[in-house]
């Protein structure tokens, strides 16, 4: 009984973590299911069909590819724009800081329904055709804020003396940036880019409003939810999950190993 009291917080913590992963487990498990009806909702029998014929169902792979392409382009643009803003906020003094902070924050605080529908209203009023371009515009719009937050955090953590040291050692402004600032801020930028990509890839609501006839992976899933989601979707999503998890755990492993190396000087 005392053991429970002492470790209550820990026990709850572990339970919550498990809770977070239950749906993931279901998603992955059901990629190995052979559904007896169109709706992959109850377990029927084990099958590797979905994995062996990943693109067997029409629309699955094409929507997946679409999402990847959009994700890459969107991430590139948003990361560049967001990084520039982060530098401006951290390194410069300027009028209109408050408005800038507010403008950056608002998209993170606005419900996706409102952002999606308002953009749709704009495109409709301008009679701008809905499709890839509108989806990409929308994605860049809401990803910029996240990039700013991520890069800003990294920049603020950087010792300003390092750049002074560079200047002291004969590095002009461009050389200082190239050899000191950029390498040190790069991990933050990469992290922001990864975050941006996952936000774009997984976005549904805003894309749904602005895609017109374009089908991204989440839009495909939504449509399929009414008709029955094929297990191939589960398989692809599991792949993405595992890949992303591998990248993040890999990064953790690298920094953990680095810390071990430091400890044993």
């Amino acid at each position: 009984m005392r053991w429970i009291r002492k470790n209550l917080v820990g026990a709850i913590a572990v339970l919550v973590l498990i809770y977070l992963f239950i749906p993931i487990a279901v998603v992955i498990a059901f990629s190995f299911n052979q559904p007896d009806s169109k709706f992959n909702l109850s377990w029927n029998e084990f099958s590797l069909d979905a994995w062996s014929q990943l693109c067997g169902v029409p629309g699955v792979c094409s929507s997946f590819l679409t999402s990847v392409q959009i994700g890459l382009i969107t991430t590139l643009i948003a990361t560049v724009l967001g990084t520039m803003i982060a530098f401006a906020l951290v390194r410069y003094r300027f009028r209109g800081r408050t408005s800038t902070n507010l403008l950056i924050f608002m998209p993170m605080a606005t419900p996706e329904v409102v952002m999606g529908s308002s953009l749709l209203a704009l495109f409709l009023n301008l009679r701008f055709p809905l499709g890839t371009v509108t989806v990409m515009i929308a994605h860049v719009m809401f990803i910029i804020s996240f990039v700013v937050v991520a890069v800003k955090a990294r920049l603020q953590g950087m010792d300003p003396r390092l750049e002074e040291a560079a200047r002291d050692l004969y590095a002009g402004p461009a050389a200082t940036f190239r050899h000191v600032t950029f390498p040190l801020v790069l991990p933050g930028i990469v992290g922001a880019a990864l975050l941006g990509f996952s936000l774009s890839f997984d976005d549904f609501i805003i894309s749904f409003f602005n895609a017109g006839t374009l089908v991204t992976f989440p839009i495909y899933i939504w449509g399929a939810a009414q008709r029955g989601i094929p297990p191939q979707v589960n398989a692809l999503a599991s792949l993405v999950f595992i890949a992303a998890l591998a990248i993040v755990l890999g990064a953790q492993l690298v920094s953990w190993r680095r810390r071990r190396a430091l400890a044993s000087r």
Partner: protein
Amino acid sequence: MAPVLPVASVAPAPLEGQKRSSRSVYLLLIPGLAWLAVFFVIPLLTLFMTSLQKESATKPGTYVFGIQVSNYVDALSEYWPQFVRSFVYAGLATLIALVIAYPLAYFIAFKAGSWRSLMLVLVVAPSFASFLLRTYAWKTILADEGPVTSTLNALHLLPDGRVLNTGIAVVAGLTYTFLPFMILPLYASLDRMDYRLIEAGGDLYASPVKVFSRVTWPLSMPGVVAGTLLTFIPAAGDFINAELLGSAKDRMIGNVIQTNFIEFRDYPTASALSFVLMAAILILVFGYIRRSGTEDLV
């Protein structure tokens, strides 16, 4: 006689606390901010304009520019139950999320030691899998014949005999979806706290409950507020959970906006509803800013 300094697009960092003042800062700011201005701010204005449009006399079913404020009155009088329901569901989900998330955040911040980074990865990891699929997975987990529902039924906890297609499922889904958004700000706030304050509290107050209520909880307030905002706001506007896990009785304002926009093409009504939702949230956010300023937002 001021020296002419070379202006680079990214100037070297000045001393901490002193920021550089230069024209080139606008070069950095304008592209990104312009994008936001054009594709975030202006659409909101467009939304407002659309909400005031009236039905075209010549082509019924389409809308033209007008100032029909009655759109708002009509929309609200028809859909106020969904509004209320949205805030209730989102509020419940936020509260439950807070209760569940706090112990986890506390554990990671103070008790996890070297496991901390791994645990944070585990908190964020589920977000790597499509959230539509994860929500859909709850349909399986909470199925009528499934283990969860059967157990709850055996304990006579369910008034309707089912979980799926009720408000319970929707709230549960909302809680699950936005849980990481509550955990991370809480963790960040707790992590910043000096643990010795809690130890000092343990010294002064006899019971752990008192230490929590007098020391830990008040100091973690910024995290609590941030987490609450980041959870409540998207939850209030969500329609996925209601669509997949609820019945027609559980429709939230997000569903209404979506169907009005996409199916009915009743743009004025949908826009009006959107705008009211946005306004309600803006009030919340400004309340927060008045207390804490904007520097910590971003």
